[in-house]
């Protein structure tokens, strides 16, 4: 493309079209631009347009297009063609800086981004004059230009804040420092002087303060990796000025906006960061300045208002104090009682107050409020910063700080008592203060785990928390109710059990509160209390203690789900699940009503499942209802099926993907509850379960395999007789699973169940094919996981059909196959098998091969006999071999075509571990000894001679131990 007017004109038209809302016009234009972007001069045409076009919209569009073009094409990837020709690269680098600086702000930002993308690749080697070019502009005196340079420099240098130290990086930084540090310092000084000259000119001040913010940010980047010599030598200049800027105020810079931080706040906030950086990393050098900064920052905190716009500044500033006060050599800065009192009074207490913004969130955005307050996503809030400062101060001054705050707590409580309806916020602050003072360590699971011993938590609970919760109206002062409930929740391990028991009916009562936060907290608190452990690994609160409250608890929990805003409240659903699990058979009388309500809920949410946690706990609750009821009365399974199958059918028919894995699990649970032959209702469903469409979804595979296993366990005979034509389809599923490295173990689960439960004659005709398939996988893509499952399977087969059958079927596939599998797979890999049941299956299977397979004694396979025995003894005695070949580290996630619906396993639908050899063999070592004994009786002399020729001494010793333990000898 030439740099011609005609081309500029064409490009202008296409750019205009890319802004068209109609995709039919926009898309082809975008396509066209993409098709020409490889041509020489294309970027230069864009640069010309963004500079000279008559229309502003084209200028902006050209600048955005240019930036995206640079983003896509500038980097030269090894082994790929260079996408921008060299002359264009040179021309771009020669022109872009002046162009950026002379452009209006909107375009300047795009070009500045482009420069930093180019800089990331080319700076400094391939763009040596960039720095000088930028630094020279500092002299221009034009702050529009200067800010452009600073912004660009910031985007070039900010990576110094997170990259690892390396020679390459430090060479670059050194180069930057040499060229940039002095001019930046001079600019800093000059800008500060200009600020006082223009102290009365609002618009000038705004520009100058934008510069100062950028300069402060650059300072942070340039000082991040290490303390540069230049900045150490000029620390006085920088720190003195930073310090005075912290204390500076100018009415002209104050903003009316309550939410958005103004320039002054942003600058001070960055200065706090800079001071914190020095305090943390360069303490030795910074020590002389630190006390001044502590005082300045603390004064800043005292004089800064409650508005949201100051939040970042305030939390940054408090965090600075918090980090300094923990350091032993700065202890003295805080030691004085007056200082401590003043920090507590003027910094901590005001920042703990419940503000209008909090109140708004409490009422109108409860979900967010709960997330912040309960789940600790409050890292940047003032309250949180104040809490951290309390903890920091307590490190050295726990006594005095507790003392000071006790006074405050008392006076705030008195204020509240005078006029609760007006002064309730004082009590909120008092509770918050007690909480932050008392909690030293906390987890979601256990609440507070370490408390300040100077605070009497139980006393406060009895005197100030319980009365609120006992009040007649659950809807009065909702914030205080929430505070009180939260107090129980987090101090549940500190408050004595009898107090918790007193609280339980109060909490149950508050499930009825209208406030979402209050009834959610009540549900959550109950759930947490029910999960507390007592002695002997039982729950702290027992079902017996809960007996008087069962009905009201269940009623209120389900009623809470009908309160506005809580129809899919996961905390409530989780509390339901936990209550069932705790109360066990005492819920049975309520099951009919409960299951009706749950199925109704299920039906309702299945229309549009949106709360995964809620759904999960709902299915868990259903499982619990089934287990608890059927444990007491197995026949009840029918009524559950009656209640649930209708909804389940609807879910399956409407293909509600999120719920299908759950449905299969519940069905598995139900089917396993049946003691007799499989009901016909299940058999009717069987063919549908083999449908490929179900198996294409990853999330379905584990629960479906589980369900098919349940079918095989309960209905193998029925399948063989009534659905024999479905056996190939069933094996097809197995084949499908075995083909995948990720799902092959599921295929083996299925295959193992088929071999274990199906009548032998029903699968006779398929057996050879099954093995061919497995051998194929073994040959083409064996993995450790596959081999482990394979080993378990062939040994299970051997147990079920006999060792001779195993040898015969192998050798019928290919001569000498049995020997090859023994030699290449079983003997070298058996050590990798993991899991107790799995190991036992292998031990019994191999014992059979050793002792019940004549060809092992009288063919060329005989040479494998001792090595196989040796491997078996190794399986018994050696640690598991968990090495994995190198290349296997890299399979899994990379090879998968993308995540699909995750499988969510239900804890309460859990399958018991199944040991197919359980009855037959108790101790596999003894079993080996007995079997060897039997073998040696059959052919006297052979066994001892095989042992003595090649079994190693250690293995022999172990074997003798087994023989002794079994009290047998070898003949």
């Amino acid at each position: 493309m030439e740099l011609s007017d005609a081309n500029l004109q064409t490009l202008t038209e296409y750019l205009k079209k890319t802004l068209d809302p109609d995709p039919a016009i926009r898309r082809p234009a975008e396509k066209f631009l993409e098709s020409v972007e490889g041509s020489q001069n294309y970027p230069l045409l864009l640069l010309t347009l963004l500079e000279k076009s008559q229309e502003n919209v084209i200028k902006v569009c050209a600048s955005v297009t240019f930036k995206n073009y640079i983003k896509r094409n500038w980097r030269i990837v090894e082994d790929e063609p260079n996408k921008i020709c060299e002359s264009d690269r040179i021309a771009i680098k020669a022109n872009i800086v002046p162009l950026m600086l002379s452009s209006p702000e909107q375009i300047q930002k795009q070009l500045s981004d482009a420069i930093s993308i180019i800089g990331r690749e080319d700076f400094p080697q391939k763009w040596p004059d960039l720095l000088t070019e930028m630094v020279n502009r500092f002299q221009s005196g034009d702050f529009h230009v200067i800010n452009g340079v600073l912004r660009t420099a910031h985007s070039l240098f900010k990576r110094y804040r997170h990259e690892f130290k390396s020679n390459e990086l430090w060479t670059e930084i050194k180069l930057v420092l040499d060229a940039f540090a002095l001019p930046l310092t001079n600019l800093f000084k000059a800008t500060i002087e200009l600020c006082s000259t223009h102290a009365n000119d609002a618009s000038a001040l705004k520009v100058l303060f934008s510069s100062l913010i950028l300069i402060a940010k650059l300072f942070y980047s340039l000082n991040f990796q290490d303390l540069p010599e230049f900045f150490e030598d000029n620390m006085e200049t920088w720190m003195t000025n930073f310090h005075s800027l912290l204390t500076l105020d100018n009415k002209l810079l104050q903003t009316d906006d309550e939410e958005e931080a103004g320039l002054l706040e942003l600058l001070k906030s960055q200065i706090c960061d800079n001071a914190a950086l020095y305090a943390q990393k360069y303490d030795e050098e910074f020590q002389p300045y630190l006390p001044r900064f502590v005082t300045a920052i603390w004064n800043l905190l005292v004089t800064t208002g409650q508005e949201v716009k100051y939040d970042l500044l305030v939390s940054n500033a408090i965090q600075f104090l918090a980090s300094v006060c923990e350091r032993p050599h700065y202890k003295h800065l805080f030691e004085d009682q007056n200082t401590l009192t003043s920090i507590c009074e003027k910094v901590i207490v005001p920042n703990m107050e419940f503000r209008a913004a909090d109140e708004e969130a409490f009422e109108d955005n409860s979900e967010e409020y709960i997330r912040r307050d309960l789940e600790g996503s409050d890292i940047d809030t003032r309250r949180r910063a104040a809490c951290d400062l309390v903890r920091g101060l307590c490190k050295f001054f726990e006594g005095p700080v507790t003392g000071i705050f006790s006074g405050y707590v008392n006076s705030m409580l008195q204020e509240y008592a005078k006029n609760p309806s007006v002064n309730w916020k004082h009590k909120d602050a008092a509770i918050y203060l007690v909480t932050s003072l008392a909690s030293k360590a906390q987890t979601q699971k256990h609440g507070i785990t370490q408390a300040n011993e100077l605070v009497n938590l139980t006393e406060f609970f009895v005197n100030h928390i319980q009365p609120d919760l006992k009040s007649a109206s659950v809807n009065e002062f909702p914030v205080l109710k929430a505070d009180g409930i939260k107090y129980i929740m987090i101090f549940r391990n500190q408050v004595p059990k009898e107090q918790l028991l007193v609280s339980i009916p109060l909490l149950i009562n508050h499930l009825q509160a209208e406030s979402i936060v209050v009834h959610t907290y009540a549900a959550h608190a109950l759930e947490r209390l029910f999960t507390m452990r007592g002695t002997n690994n039982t729950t702290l609160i027992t079902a017996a203690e809960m007996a008087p409250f069962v009905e009201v608890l269940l009623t209120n929990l389900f009623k809470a789900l009908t309160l506005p805003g809580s129809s899919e409240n996961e905390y409530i659903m989780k509390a339901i699940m936990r209550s069932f699990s705790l109360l066990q058979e005492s819920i049975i009388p309520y099951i009919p009503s409960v299951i009706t309500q749950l199925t109704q809920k299920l039906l309702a949410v299945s229309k549009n499942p949106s709360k995964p946690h809620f759904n999960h706990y709902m299915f868990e609750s259903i499982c619990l209802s089934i287990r608890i009821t059927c444990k007491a009365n197995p026949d009840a399974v029918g009524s559950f099926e009656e209640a649930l199958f209708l909804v389940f059918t609807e879910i399956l028919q409407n293909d509600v993907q999120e719920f299908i894995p759950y449905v299969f699990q519940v069905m598995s649970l139900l089917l396993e509850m049946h003691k007799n032959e499989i009901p016909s209702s299940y058999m009717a469903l069987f063919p549908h379960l083999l449908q490929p469409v179900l198996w294409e979804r990853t999330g379905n595979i584990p629960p479906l395999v589980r369900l098919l296993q349940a079918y095989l366990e309960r209905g193998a005979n029925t399948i063989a007789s009534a659905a024999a034509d479905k056996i190939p389809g069933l094996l097809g599923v197995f084949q499908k699973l075995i083909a995948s490295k990720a799902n092959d173990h599921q295929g083996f689960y299925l295959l193992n169940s088929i071999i274990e439960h199906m009548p032998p004659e029903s699968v006779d005709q398929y057996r050879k094919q099954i093995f061919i398939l497995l051998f194929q996988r073994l040959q083409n893509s064996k993995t450790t996981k596959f081999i482990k499952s394979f080993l378990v399977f062939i040994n299970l087969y051997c147990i079920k059909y006999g060792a001779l059958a195993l040898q015969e079927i192998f050798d019928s596939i290919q001569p000498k196959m049995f020997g090859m599998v023994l030699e290449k797979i079983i003997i070298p890999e058996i050590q990798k098998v993991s899991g107790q049941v799995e190991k036992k299956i292998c031990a019994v299977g191999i014992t059979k091969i050793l002792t019940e397979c004549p060809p092992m004694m009288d063919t060329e396979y005989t040479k494998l006999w001792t090595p196989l025995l040796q491997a078996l003894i190794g399986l018994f005695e050696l640690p598991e071999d968990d090495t994995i070949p190198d290349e296997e580290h890299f399979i899994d996630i990379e090879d998968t075509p993308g995540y699909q619906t995750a499988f969510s396993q239900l804890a309460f639908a859990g399958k018991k571990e199944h040991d197919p050899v359980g009855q037959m063999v108790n101790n596999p070592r003894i079993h080996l000894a007995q079997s060897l004994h039997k073998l040696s009786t059959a052919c006297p002399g052979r066994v001892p001679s095989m042992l003595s020729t090649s079994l190693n001494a250690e293995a022999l010793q172990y074997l003798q131990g087994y023989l002794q333990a079994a009290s047998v000898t070898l003949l």
Partner: protein
Amino acid sequence: MPVVSKHSERLRKFKNKGKDAAALRRQRVEVNIELRKAKKDEQILKRRSISFSLMDESLSLGEEKRNEVIQLSLEEIVEAVNGSNTELQLQATQATRRMLSRQKDPPINQILELGIIPRLVEFLTHADNAPLQFEAAWALTNIASGTSDHTKAVVEGGAIPAFISLLSSQHMHISEQSVWALGNIAGDGPLYRDALINCNVIPPLLALVSPVTPVGFLRNITWTLSNLCRNKNPYPPLDAVKKVLPVLICLMEHEDKDIISDSCWAVSYLTDGSNDRIQIVVDTGILPRLVELMASPELIIMTPALRAIGNVVTGTDEQTQAAIDAGVLAVLPCLLRHAKPTVQKEAAWTLSNIAAGPCQQIQQLITSGLLPPLVELLDKGDFKAQKEAVWAVANFTTGGTVEQVVELVQSGVLKPLLNLLLAKDSKTILVILDTISNLFLAAEKLGETERLCLLVEELGGLEKIEALQTHDNNMVYRAALSIIEKYFSGEENPDLQPGTGQDGLYDFSVEKQDFNF
């Protein structure tokens, strides 16, 4: 679920693999690029001999005592130096030396520009005029004390052979001045150091060391010897090292603290290298003395001794064991608690390399009571020292047995370690995250994963790790994410399984092929 455990097993292997390289012993990282000011506690490379009027008097050996100090212009100096009047030559050389010896801003560049250096070098050979030799030697010493260009001018003027032959001068003060000048030349870098060694500087230099050598003189010799041992790329030639080392060992037993200090510095340079270099020092049996000196209350002795031992433990397990046998573990606690941050840092670095050893050495580290000071340092130390302490913990958790790791956790390492996740240094954060993974691996083996999870959460670690998931450094955020996913992803473990399905048809059929595993 088998797949999940399988997966984590794999990941574990992979991570361990990666870690072996990362947690190896770390040599003193000589970053060629320094952003910082030159370190204040390094030994001085070059020194200028400053004249104090008193010393000047006493050293000027009578002759010019009667003369008032003569002021000469630069032009006059050039003329006199190049002239043939020996009296004037002496006066001019002395004037030059005076200018170069004044305390502030010696005019080295101006003198250099006069072009009189070759002439001054020539004066060194005037064996019949000792005062002139001495003044020239002094002047040249001070020129050589400047920048590399200054030293270069002196060397190129032919000073090396001249000074070496003056080592054997019968006038002790001339010999001493020559030692000093040679020290400055050696201190310039490996090139001139080796030029001196090739000119056979070592035998005459070592010959000056005797029981009767005055302390001041001996200090100079020791310092020059240390400069002959200094610098890498390349290291000083092996045979030179072998010649110098026995003398250094003797000097280390001297009672003068400067002599001890400089001989320790020399040994610290010799140990700052590959394992075979370290071995030469270990073989001398000097380690016990070095360890003893590490405990010296004199900072100038303790610093280089600590450094030398620190270098030794970057070596092989056997070399490290030699340092342990010499008692280094008994001295370290005190140094880890030293008031000076750089000492803390060096001590922690040393400890980190011992912790990189086999578990027997880690055990000795525990038995010697190093864990409490390590934890203290991690908690309250200077940042530079904290970084090294983090490495020590990381290495410990990589090489230690499960029991040792448990002991580490019980000594309270977790809290300060987790606090340091707020450090403003990506590498440190990454090393901590790796350490946390190591701790979890140990916890898994003990079936204590859940307890460790709670502990990490309790100590405020969880929210810090969570926050790191948005860190700008890719490796940091991935490490954080992996910990969260593996250990903190909640009660419902999503079993993420990949999908399959090219064939789609589930008909059960297969073609037989030949198998050979």
